[in-house]
């Protein structure tokens, strides 16, 4: 490494009952370097950074920070040494305002008034606009992350740890974040960046360390390594990209006709005359920036929002006025984006969660009485088929890591043999191997003749699996285009909403 080392980890080991989270991990982070920590869910990334941040103490091994021995017993000590951390699940207090939240993460906060003006100036310097007096509960995911970042920046950190910072951000927010991080780097701050989004790491990070099952299995320069090679290092075996078998499309199964709904809340988006038509065996990918009607579209297809019956037809039956269970009975299944609280009840066990959507199609109830044995074996079937890592079906949904729960939530719908499946962000926060497995299962489902709508913000994902693509923009859906002759320009136009159909035609004529 060309730069001098800021932090050296030497032989760090941390074992929990039954699992060695970190096994003799050695790595070194240079000054002014963006260092990526890569690994699958459960590879031990979080434990490692928790040790650096003083939340967890290593069993053996030493750390050196700027040449001096460093063994923080609590986060306070880490912060004193210039180590700051932005958490994956934000450590914010909804009922408190931005200034109060920031003061809580500081060692010696100034008075509230000084702090507020400081927040304003820092947020302007780094292009992260933020009102110090807003209550945090009213902020969007991106704004909440800004609160965390500014909280760290105010302490003038030498090392900033970011645990999967982009998993909840829209593409624009990611761009803003990257600009901030590059600016920080140019000022000499080192960043330890945890992610499993390989393309992000390739564009942002100078150096990467890959963890697998708690061990450091390799290092690389991301810009000079292909995403595929990094993914294979993470997984430990060669990755097979999802296979697309040639499919014959059947008759149209799911259709909407000029579907419009009012915005569900002040922060929601109104859907404006949406026409969707998906055939058996077809995967329709819907892209677009978050907050342009994705949640509303899913909700209307799912049945959480009902519309006039004839607005949605499924297998030639008008279903618009039906509730979710009636639609499930017909074979129209959905998996929403928000895992905890929407797709799964956090404090209920996996068996109970399997019952919640599976009761009807899997026959898990008998005249209102639950069939626990059958429900449990259905949950076990999901766990096995989708490689959900959990002690068993009695674990609560909350206890699973995000990626594992996502596998469970998608698996639960896929295994109910849907005729049509609508998913929103199916691989959000899921590592490469699991994401590939989920995509493969969607493709397999389509091969078996199901109609699939995949709403996602991951364009690569949509290009990989979908047959046709359209984009949501301010509640309007662009005309679907076959994926194989799409160009980046067209996609950009579609996502930006600049594309009226005529403009699209022109664009295509010139391409």
């Amino acid at each position: 490494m060309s730069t001098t080392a800021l932090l050296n980890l030497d032989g760090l080991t941390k074992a929990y009952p039954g699992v060695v989270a970190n096994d003799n991990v050695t790595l070194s982070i240079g000054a002014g370097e963006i260092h990526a920590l890569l690994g699958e869910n459960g590879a031990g990334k979080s434990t490692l950074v928790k040790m650096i941040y003083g939340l967890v103490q290593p069993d053996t091994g030493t750390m050196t920070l700027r040449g001096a021995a460093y063994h923080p017993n609590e986060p306070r000590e880490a912060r004193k040494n210039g180590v700051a951390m932005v958490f994956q699940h934000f450590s914010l207090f909804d009922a408190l305002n931005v200034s109060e939240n920031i003061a809580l993460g500081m060692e010696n906060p100034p008075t509230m008034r000084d702090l507020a003006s400081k927040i304003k100036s820092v947020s302007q310097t780094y292009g992260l606009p933020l009102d110090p007096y807003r209550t945090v509960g009213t902020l969007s995911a991106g704004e909440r992350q800004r609160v965390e970042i500014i909280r760290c920046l105010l302490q003038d950190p030498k090392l900033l740890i970011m645990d999967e910072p982009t998993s909840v951000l829209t593409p624009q927010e990611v761009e803003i974040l990257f600009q901030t991080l590059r600016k920080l780097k140019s000022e000499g701050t080192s960043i330890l960046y945890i992610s499993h989004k390989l393309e992000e790491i390739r564009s942002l990070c100078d150096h990467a360390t890959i963890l697998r099952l708690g061990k450091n299995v390799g290092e690389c320069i991301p810009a000079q390594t292909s995403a595929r090679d990094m993914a294979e290092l993470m997984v430990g075996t060669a990755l097979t990209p999802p296979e697309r078998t040639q499919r014959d499309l059947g008759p149209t199964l799911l259709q909407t006709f000029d579907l419009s709904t009012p915005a569900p809340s002040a922060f929601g988006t109104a859907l404006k005359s949406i026409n969707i038509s998906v055939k058996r065996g077809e995967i329709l990918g819907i892209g677009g920036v978050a907050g342009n009607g994705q949640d509303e579209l899913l909700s209307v297809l799912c049945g959480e929002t009902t519309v006039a019956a004839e607005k949605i037809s499924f297998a030639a039956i008008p279903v618009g006025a039906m509730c979710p269970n009636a639609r499930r009975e017909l074979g129209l299944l959905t998996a929403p984006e928000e895992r905890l609280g929407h797709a799964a009840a956090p404090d209920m066990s996996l068996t109970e969660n399997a019952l919640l959507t599976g009761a009807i199609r899997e026959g898990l109830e008998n005249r209102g009485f639950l069939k626990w044995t059958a429900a449990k074996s259905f949950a076990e079937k999901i766990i096995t088929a989708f490689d959900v890592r959990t002690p068993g079906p009695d674990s609560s949904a909350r206890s699973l890591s995000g990626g594992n729960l996502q596998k469970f939530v998608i698996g639960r719908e896929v295994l109910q043999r849907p005729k049509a499946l609508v998913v929103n962000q199916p691989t959000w926060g899921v590592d490469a191997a699991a994401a590939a497995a989920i995509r493969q299962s969607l493709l397999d489902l389509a091969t078996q003749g199901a109609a699939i709508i995949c709403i996602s913000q991951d364009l690569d994902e949509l290009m990989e699996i979908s047959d046709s693509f359209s984009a949501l923009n301010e509640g309007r859906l662009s005309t679907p285009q076959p994926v194989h002759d799409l160009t980046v320009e067209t996609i950009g136009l579609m996502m930006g909403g600049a594309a009226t159909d005529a403009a699209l035609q022109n664009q295509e004529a010139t391409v």
Partner: protein
Amino acid sequence: MDLSAINPALLIASLMVAATPILFAAIGELIAEKAGVLNLGVEGMMIIGAVAGFAVAVESGSPLLGFAAAAAAGAAFSMLFVIMTQLALANQVASGLALTLFGLGLSALLGQSYVGIKPPKLDTFDIPILSEIPGIGPALFSHDIVLYFGIALTFVIWSGLKYSRAGLVLRAVGENHDAAHALGYKVMRIRILAILFGGACAGLGGAYISLIRVPQWTQGMTAGIGWIALALVVFSSWKPLRTLLGAYLFGGITVLQLNFQAAGVAIPVEYLAMSPYLITILVLVILSADKSGAPAALGRNFHASR
């Protein structure tokens, strides 16, 4: 009916006395709840404070020593709640109810030999100059020091919660204990301190009943004041100054309706007797129509490994 028998100065003076036990208990519970702990044992801690304060005051002849002992006894008794909920992670609702039942029984046992005794009297502390104002002076400024301490404590807690770092940390712990832990705050330690403070305050409130308001020891003499205090915390939206208002409102109407009963007002006694509860709840419900809600982590146990 003879309303002229009601002396306004005396009425105000006695309403302040009637309000003080509720105020102490409620302000202590407010701190515990702000830290995310729902302690339903207020009634039990109060009556333990009442009997301990009474016993020590009688034995030592010093009412102030009695109050100190009551605070210590209340805190010590709440230690049981600490062990159950913070160390053994037992359910807070059940543990709190157990504390109340246990406290009522234990106090009856401890207080057997003190029934029918008069405690030493705590001298009034006449605030110079102010207490000499005719009318208002004797009503407002000629009380015992503990009563003033209760009011002062309320204001200290109000400003502490609002402006101090410690208050912010306390609110943060009650709002999201996982985040507070991640930032390096000692959730369990802060909660234990909050529970002990709640216990001490409830003890003071109990002793105020047995040493000043009544003043004598009888079994079960707190008579539901602890439950009123609990309800008051909720209805006052966890705001100290509203708690003060609620306590005074409740105390005031209690005293007023007793005066009405004595004066023979033509309203059935049952209606008069329920009026403090009804009116206090009504007023506080109207006041709490704003958006401020309960601490988000209220009643949820915290364990660092999850």
